């Protein structure tokens, strides 16, 4: 488990002083995948480096399994870091070492015997599905495979916490999906706490249980994914599942934007809505899916001659939020920032 208490990182002095992380407070439980998203320069990588103390926080503390890392000496840190596995963007593999030798690195640093190392490396490569690539050099592996080697290496010392900074950025969708599946499997099997840093909203939706949005060093919004998706007021929720463009309503109809706010939305809500309003309801655009077993989604509908208050009330009884236009905070804008 990771918890941050008032974590602050300041670079530079005087005029050059920039607060990159501003009193961050959050925690990642055992078995939880916590995503941090944010625009470029928000401080995501700095956060990752502060969590494993590659950068010393200016103030505040980082606790891993209850131990305060920020107070440790460099030597004690070396020991403490064994409990944190770090996956780097663009894998960080040593070019002159094979996949197996790369995975063996942390064991080598620790001074584990050759026989033990060999057994552990074989086990780890099997775990990430690369047993047949043990002798390959990084340049002989695909981006996704390299990232798997990086994950195997991060797991070498049996950490309880996994730190991933843009582990899937730059990978194609298939590789991303398989890395995400691997991380979830590892979380389930090993009970890892995973801090997953990314700027890809799509990936967040696939992998995370909770998400926080970092902007200018502050966490501006955070919560469990499903709850954010069901909150029509949540900018982060809208950024995670942006509404796409849709057909416009007929001349005599009003456009309404409807979103799922509870688990109890009946699958035939559209018919029920039309029945209860006694009018025609046309579907202009919709996106509905299940995330972690919960149905979430939104739709644009065209409604002729219904009393707005009545419509809102009926929608509410069906577990839906209805409003005449899409919420002000343009999701496209957040997405843009995040990319």
């Amino acid at each position, binding site marked *: 488990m990771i918890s941050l208490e008032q974590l602050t990182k300041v670079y530079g002095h005087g005029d050059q002083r920039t607060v990159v992380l501003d009193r961050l407070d959050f925690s990642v439980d055992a078995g939880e995948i916590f995503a941090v998203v944010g625009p470029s320069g928000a401080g995501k990588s700095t956060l990752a480096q502060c969590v494993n103390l590659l950068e010393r926080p200016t103030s505040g503390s980082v606790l891993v399994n209850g131990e305060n890392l920020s107070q440790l000496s460099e030597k004690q840190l*070396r020991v403490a870091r064994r409990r944190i596995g770090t996956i780097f963007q663009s894998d960080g593999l040593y070019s*002159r070492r094979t996949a197996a030798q790369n995975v063996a690195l942390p064991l080598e640093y620790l001074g584990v015997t050759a026989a033990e190392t060999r057994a552990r490396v074989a086990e780890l490569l099997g775990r990430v599905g690369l047993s047949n690539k043990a002798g390959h050099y990084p*340049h002989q592996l695909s981006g996704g495979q390299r990232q798997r080697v990086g994950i195997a290496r991060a797991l070498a010392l049996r950490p309880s916490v996994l730190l991933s900074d843009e582990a899937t950025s730059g990978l194609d969708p298939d590789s991303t999906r398989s890395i995400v599946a691997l991380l979830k499997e590892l979380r389930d099997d090993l009970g890892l706490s995973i801090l997953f840093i990314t700027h890809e909203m799509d990936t967040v939706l696939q992998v995370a249980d909770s998400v926080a949005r970092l902007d200018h060093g502050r966490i501006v919004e955070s919560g469990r994914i499903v709850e954010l998706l069901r909150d029509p007021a949540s900018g982060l929720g809208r950024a995670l599942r942006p509404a796409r463009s849709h057909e416009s309503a007929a001349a005599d109809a009003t456009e309404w934007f409807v979103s799922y706010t509870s688990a109890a939305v009946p699958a035939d809500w559209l018919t029920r809505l039309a029945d209860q309003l006694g009018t025609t309801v046309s579907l202009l655009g919709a996106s509905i899916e299940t995330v972690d077993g919960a149905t979430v989604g939104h739709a644009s509908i065209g409604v002729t001659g219904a009393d707005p208050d009545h419509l809102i009330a009926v929608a509410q009884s069906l577990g839906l939020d209805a409003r005449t236009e899409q919420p002000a905070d343009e999701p496209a804008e957040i997405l843009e920032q995040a990319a």
Partner: protein
Amino acid sequence: MSILTATLTGPLPLNNNVPVADIPALVFPALLDTLIMVGIVMLIVVLVGIPLGALVHNLAPGGLFENPALHTTLSWIVSIGRSLPFLILMAAIVPFTRFITGTNIGIAAAVVPMSIAGIAFFTRIVENSLRGVPPTLVRVAKASGASPLQIIRTAQLSEALPSIIGGLTINTIAMIEYSAIAGTIGAGGIGYVAVTYGYQRFDNTVMLATIVILVATVASVQLIGDRLVRLTTPHSRTQARLPRAARREASLV
């Protein structure tokens, strides 16, 4: 060697000169001396230059033992060593050389200034090679629990090895050149032969022989160096060795 024999049989003035038949007996022991001299120097250069280069690199901002004052000082000392022409360096440190070796002529005396020049050269080469290693690798090593020495060994020197070997090749060739200059203070070796026979006695045949020998030596060093660089770079090594089908597979996966 075919060039050598071809020119040696040509119509050259043979008045006061070394007879062609005696040239190998003159030149080959001299070559051996040169190789010994350069060999000893390069051993010292590598033993001192690698740690020194790694130290200078890691004292720099962003290094493992960041220390601007010490970095500037060391960097200046190395720069001075680099900027003096070898002949001047050699003359300037005669007292030091005599203090260390007890003499100021011969191989022993040449080794001292050559080592100093070589170390300064190689320190820069190592530093420059280390700068080419992606900084992420140091972070990877730290995050994997490496001690500073382990970081330097595995994340820095090992990854920079092909580049360091490439630099070492250039450095060795420069040292062969310096050995010829050192020949002028009676250091022996091929340079000495070239100066005493070729230059002072106008013995063109000997001069030519020494030139051919030097060119051949330098070319061999370069060849060996290039070979070693290729051997230590997995990319070029595996490309060269894998059969075509495997190579295609490797580039596709």
